[in-house]
């Protein structure tokens, strides 16, 4: 991946990766449907039916034309999940996706994220400080282990 030039990395990001952030990062001027469609525009191309069915899947079928500010934080993160899956990615990156959510929403969102990734056949790579969350996953890596220098200067 690091061997690709910038334009190809942009392309790779659009077509292969989906991202879910702690702070949602939805575009405020776009409706839920438009947020998902916009992600598609950079990747596989806009498909209104698919975007609507994704939002349906995350339980927001009745909120397609709502703007993010009109939604609860839990709902906003569910839009972000739908957006991450818009281009049928092979890998979904989630950076503290539950960090800004209350306990109930956090549990629901995490379950949704795992289920939808499984349904779409996408690998899920999730970063969290929360041991309870980490315990649900099949494989966990400690950041401190990854950050160990392999070679030490003499």
């Amino acid at each position, binding site marked *: 991946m690091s061997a690709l030039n910038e334009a190809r990395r942009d392309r790779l*990001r659009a077509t292969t990766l989906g991202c879910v952030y702690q*702070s949602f990062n939805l575009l405020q001027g776009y409706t839920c449907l438009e947020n998902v469609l916009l992600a598609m525009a950079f990747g596989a191309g806009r498909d209104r039916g698919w975007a609507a069915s994704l939002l349906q899947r995350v339980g927001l079928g009745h909120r397609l034309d709502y703007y993010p500010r009109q939604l609860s934080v839990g709902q906003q993160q569910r839009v972000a999940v739908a957006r991450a899956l818009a281009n049928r990615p092979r890998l979904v990156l989630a950076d503290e996706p539950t960090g800004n959510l209350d306990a109930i929403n956090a549990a629901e969102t995490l379950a949704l994220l795992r289920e939808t990734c499984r349904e779409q056949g996408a690998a899920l790579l999730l970063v969290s400080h929360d041991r309870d969350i980490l315990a649900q996953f099949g494989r966990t890596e400690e950041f401190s282990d990854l950050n160990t220098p392999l070679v030490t200067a003499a």
Partner: protein
Amino acid sequence: MVIPLVVYKSLRQHLVSTLVSAAAIALAGGLLMSVWVMRQEASRTFTSVSGGFDAVLCARSSKLQLVLNAIFHLEDSPGNISAADVETVLKNPNIEFGLPIAVGDNYQGYRLVGTTTELFERVEFAPGRRYRVAEPGRPFAMGEKEAVAGSFAAQQLGLAPGGTFHPFHGLIYDETKQHAETFVVTGVLEPTGTPADRVIWIPLEGLQRMSGHDARAATDVSALLIRLKQSNPMAGFQLDMLYNKRGNKFTFAWPLGAILGKLFDKIAWFDRILAFVSYLVVVVASASILASIYNSMNERRREIAILRALGAGRLTVFGAIVVESAAIAALGMAMAFAIYAAVVGAASEIIRAQTGVVIDPFALHPVMLVAPTGIVALAALCGVFPAIKAYRTDVAGGIAPTS
């Protein structure tokens, strides 16, 4: 293409600054087009006003004064020529037709011009168009105290066939100098879009013999409007030689368009300054687009980073800002045509009131294509500066949680 959607969303999100910037462009673009069209149309129209004549002959004076007096009815008369001289001049084989006029009186500021009924019978103020008296009405009769009012003068003074008025002495209205004579309006001219609309036409003797005028000069005329023999292409040159170069009694103003053209040349610096000011205003308005987008770049940083994270290339976010800037200008230029219509409409109305000359405010003009294109291009160029900032946006920094 995703850029149109992104641009549309951004314009809506920054609606107030979009509208303010577009309004600035509308004013600037409207002003620029107005200045351009007015300076060109005014000089084109004025230099083509001839009343249907090729030249004016009068006592020795400046040609410009002669044209302004006899054709535009604006200036003072430089002096008179005697009836005998008129007769001699008219015998010149290079002259096809001459119409004498006499000036010196007004009615409430609108000039009385004495002439003969040949005005209605022989003069074509534009090819195929004669001065016609509107129904109901008839031309004045020679020897009677009758008048035919130009359409604009009639409208302003409330003159209609059957109405009467007492003229005032002099070309400038002075209410203490009323003549005793009563003139009867016999008709109103159909609108011509020429200075003839702003005067009241009366029989030549009516003016010459007005009470209080010098009886010794009663057969003099103020000027002779001349149509040259079309069969002799050198007629104008020969008369110019005869009266201006060799003679010293008359001034022969010919060709009319060139004389007024020189006036426009003399004041050309004035409209060059106007044009320059309008360019400056356009630059300022374009810079205001730059400033408003540039100032909003901080709040846009996050959105741009999100777009980049979704897979938008640097060139896409760069292009979106440039197109947004151009789109604001395009929106402004659409409104600029309304400003243009208002400014030019008002200006041409003022010109008509002051001179009788009608300038077509909606004549198509190349500047109407060039100005919008140029201003949109300039705005796109202004958009490049904030776009560079967008191009350089740090994606990781932009999407990091702000809390």
